[in-house]
């Protein structure tokens, strides 16, 4: 096999593994969300399918797969079909630059690959932001193509909301980029090794606590989750932009929403909480004399941090009521944006005054 072919095959294997992990996580999340919500509301959650309800995600998938696929009368058929794909692809494509584990290189038949990141490009975080900003197209076009006023209003709300909060996400992570001096997620994560006070959430000279809070709130808003789920406010808009969708196309929107949640959680873990680094220097496997197994510990730390954020999403959903639309916009532009800008100024001054801290 030629070198190009081999490289291509290895990349395809990596992509398949990452996509499989993301889809399995989505399956787990759909069950976990209902279980967590159930416990928080003193209920059991789904209990019927399988022991303790653990097969519920598969039942849901089968149901969605066999549902009738309805295209409403007067809908724009091309865009109605394209919109779910436009929502799904940007949600998955960002995982290409997430470092899941240690920055190792493996040589295979003369080809050097990094097993825990599909592509270590030097503008990693900008790449994710670029594709995340395209997710809005799926929502807006889906809302417009449905030929329904509920869908259209949901799509319009979503457009304004995603643009407003995307700005805050971008500005919140600039502080971390200034500290790390790099846009590559691999380098940003590597720079946070050692004790947990090297994580950029706590790191001197400029702990990114405020940026972290702004990022988490804006990420919840950008993924259209409670308390910012205005685009799909069921009391006003039935189901918002996907009111008219059914069957597999609805499943695509559903998958995109959960994949986006996982993506923003991974970014939060990698940029603010040290990514795959353990809160102590090195790993326990290293101390036991098994350095080749250290990646298990590192990936587990990454998974734990990511799942902490995903739990936060459920927790917020069980706790907070939905904001009103004007409150949402005022909060984004008049509270979050000034905090994010002030954080950039303070971080820049701190890094200028203490370049070696």
């Amino acid at each position, binding site marked *: 096999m030629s070198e190009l072919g081999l490289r291509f095959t290895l990349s395809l294997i990596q992509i398949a593994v990452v996509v499989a992990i993301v889809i399995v996580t989505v399956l787990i999340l759909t069950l976990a969300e209902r279980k967590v919500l159930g416990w928080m509301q003193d209920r059991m959650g789904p209990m019927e399918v399988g022991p303790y309800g653990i097969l519920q995600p598969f039942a849901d998938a089968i149901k969605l797969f066999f549902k009738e696929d309805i295209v409403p009368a007067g809908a*724009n058929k091309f*865009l109605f079909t394209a919109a779910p794909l436009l929502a799904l692809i940007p949600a998955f494509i960002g995982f290409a630059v997430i470092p899941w584990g240690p920055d190792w290189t493996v040589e295979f038949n003369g080809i050097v690959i990094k097993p825990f990141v599909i592509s270590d*490009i*030097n*503008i990693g975080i*900008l*790449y994710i*932001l*670029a*594709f995340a*900003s*395209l997710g*809005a*197209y799926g929502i*807006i*076009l889906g*809302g*417009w193509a449905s030929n329904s006023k509920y869908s*259209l209003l949901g*799509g*319009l709300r979503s*457009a*304004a909301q*995603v*643009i407003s909060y*995307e700005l805050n996400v*971008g500005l919140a992570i600039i502080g971390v980029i200034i500290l790390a001096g*790099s*846009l*590559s997620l691999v380098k940003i994560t590597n720079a946070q090794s050692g004790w947990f006070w090297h994580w950029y959430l706590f790191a001197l000279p400029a702990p990114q606590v405020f940026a972290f809070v702004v990022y988490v709130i804006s990420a919840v808003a950008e993924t259209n989750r409670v308390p910012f789920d205005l685009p799909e406010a069921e009391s006003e808009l039935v189901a918002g932009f996907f009111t008219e969708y059914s069957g597999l196309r609805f499943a695509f929107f559903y998958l995109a929403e959960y994949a986006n949640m996982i993506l923003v959680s991974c970014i939060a873990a990698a940029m603010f909480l040290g990514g795959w680094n353990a809160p102590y220097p090195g790993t326990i496997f290293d101390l036991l004399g098994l350095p080749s197994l250290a990646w298990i510990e590192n990936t587990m730390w990454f998974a734990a941090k990511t799942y902490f954020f995903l739990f936060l999403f459920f927790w917020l959903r069980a706790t907070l009521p939905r904001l009103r639309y004007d409150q949402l916009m005022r909060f984004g532009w008049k509270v979050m944006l000034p905090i994010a800008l002030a954080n950039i100024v303070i971080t820049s001054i701190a890094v200028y005054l203490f370049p070696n801290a």
Partner: protein
Amino acid sequence: MEQLVFGYFAGVIAVAAVLVVALRNPVYSVLSLLVMFFHVAGLYITLHAEFLAAVQIIVYAGAILVLYLFVLMLLNIKQDDRYHRQWRTAAALCLPLFLELLVLFAGADPEAIDPLAAAPMNSGEDNTRAIGLTLFSTYLFPFEVASLILLVAMIGAIVLAKRGIGGQGA
């Protein structure tokens, strides 16, 4: 190979740009503009300007074009194709520009206009750093002027919007 990639990007950019003005449905026009922005970003990547490519997508495709779509949806598209009767004006505008292009290309050194002959910039992190350094040293004054103009436009838009509301209320 490089010629092939460049040919693909350039061809799609040209076709999509024509479609933006030729299609009857404004939503399809916006979508062809989206396709065009993507291929322009692809062209930047072939020139090792990854930072520029990412910014192209974030700013143009992610923010400006979403606003275009936003405005389009508030209009009643089905009855509103009066903007497609302007090909005479468009032709009158495009002809001098095209002639100017011909004159420029005819007078130029053929080596100088070959996009692939241009020396590629340093790949790697240096690209982002190089843009930053150039922008904040050599081109600092134009950069500041551009930000000032944008700020003026922003304040102007806010003033106009506020006045409209006040006039209706009074």
